[in-house]
């Protein structure tokens, strides 16, 4: 048995069935006659996914690997957490302080968590990028983005 194939197939199949019987009726209203139902296309897609994922799961059970699966590496989880923290901080700064602060924390923060220690690079790139964006939008194009 190919475990990843089986479990990913089974889980997605379950999600697709949940979407068909629960999310679609809840989130898409039915309309009167004379129209193609707005539910039709989403339902077709989901039935297709459910069916094929079931097939994938069955194949997994029988030991057939339909295609390559790469394992999730611990380093990747760490990167997710590190960069996620930087993004969360920047979003908080964007909402509560100022977009500029968010920009600074995003670039400089990412540098720091990825191991860049050269202050010249950190300061230079952070300042240069923000100035570039400001120059392109506010000066050159005369439009604002925040």
């Amino acid at each position, binding site marked *: 048995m190919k475990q*990843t194939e089986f479990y990913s197939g089974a889980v997605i199949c379950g999600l697709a069935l949940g979407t068909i019987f629960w999310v679609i009726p809840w989130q898409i209203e039915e309309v009167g006659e004379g129209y*193609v139902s707005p539910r039709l296309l989403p339902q*077709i897609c989901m039935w297709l*996914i459910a069916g094929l994922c079931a097939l994938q799961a069955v194949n997994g059970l029988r030991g057939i690997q339909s295609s390559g699966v790469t394992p999730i590496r611990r380093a990747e989880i760490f990167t997710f957490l590190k960069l996620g923290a930087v993004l969360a901080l920047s979003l908080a700064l964007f909402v509560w302080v100022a977009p500029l602060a968010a920009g600074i924390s995003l670039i400089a923060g990412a540098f720091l968590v990825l191991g860049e220690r050269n202050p010249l690079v950190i300061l230079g790139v952070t300042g240069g990028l923000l100035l570039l964006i400001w120059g392109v939008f506010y000066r*050159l194009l005369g439009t604002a983005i925040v």
Partner: protein
Amino acid sequence: MDYLISGFGNVLNVSTLLWVFIGVTLGYVLGAIPGLGKATGVAVSIPLTFYLPPISAIAMLIGIAKGSAAGSAVSAILLNTPGEPSSAPTALDGYPLARQGKAQKALKMGLFASVCGDFISTLILISLAAPLASYALLIGPVELCAILLFSLTFIGGLSGTSLVKGVIAGAFGVFLATVGIEIETFVPRLTFGLLELDEGISLIPMAIGMLALAEMIVQASNMRALDQEAAALRDGGHPDDQRVTRDEWLRCLPVIGRGSLIGSVVGILPGLGASVGSFMSYSATVRLSKNPGSYGTGRIEGVAAAESADNAVVPASLIPLFALGIPGSVIAAILISALIMHGLTPGPLMFKQQPQLVGDLYASLLCASVILLVVGYTGQKLFAQVVRVPLRRVVPVVIFLCCVGAYMETSSLFSIYLMLFFTVLGYVMRKLDYSFITFLIGFVIGPNLELTFRQSIQLLDGKVSRLTEHPIAVVFALMTLATVAVIGWAQRPKPAAEPLPTSR
């Protein structure tokens, strides 16, 4: 023809060429910034052209469009972050090439393919605008529906190593494209009460998240190895890695020719857009290749296919505009205002009333192609230095550009959240080997297919028999069936060999 020659006389002066040059350069830079597409670039630049003479103004705007279509390949190849969605297929093979130390090669091919596609398409525009445009009008929703069905079927077989997983991903793409207000009944679908989703999920944050950010996470976790790899390749690199060899030229020429034609046809047809063109050209190349599995690992033909079609769409979409006054793309629609403002009313009368102005315009279009080659060639040498920088210094810049790109279309944080959602999804899909190419193709073509299908039902009054009034549609419907039969036969051993669109 005489007007074209005298047009060159009028255009080949320092001031006009300077404006074309500025337009192309501006477009090239804008195109390289993720999320800032041709349409935005042209729209916000229209006021800049108020003070210019008509030809300079329009040539500059078209220069921006052409430049940004080519520039978007730069970030796609170097950073795996398509400058605009239509360059997403460029990244699929361009980025692996850059990681293998062949960035210059990929960039050069991208540029040449762009310029070729652009040039061929411009020639088609000049020679065939009037006769072709009347045929474009024969393509109504019924015909378009059949054409889309055919192309989706064609693309459906593309899905890499596993057809099952490819179709799952494609179906999910179509599914996510249904989010938003349904256009016929105005029922909101799957919006969970969020007004932000009324107009659907935007392609830009989705593509940026799935392609660029997800890739950055994977790379940042593996920085040291990748940097060593890149350094090793760089040092031991063969000079051929930095240029396009004659052999590669020969292999790519038919690909570029086909890409230019596909892009031109897509550009002439209303409402399809550059993304459809580049994806179709890419998948056609993969399908016709003897070794489809090798695509996505750094095949130079992949870059050539995507970029030639991407750039061919821009001039071709001016064909219905010039000949009939119909905008074939967003760019063309924006250009209408600019053209009228500068005293040129697009449409058949334009050729009769102001032939000289049209000649000038054509001449400046061709000049823009040449200038694009110069600007791009200079620019890419500078840009290519990016691969020499260690990843820990590249990743923060890319992440920032991704955020700006996702944010700027709507000026709202919602796009950032969308981008992050698709980053995670893209990561999971990478790990489980669900093709995000078929996912994106489903997302791009799905809504057009549904819309034209709904339109067709109204046009045909619900009667299949009335299809006989639409012979072009019948031809494409038959071609679809033939394709399904061929693919189904070829994939016999696999039980679920039916490609996605046959479910309709």
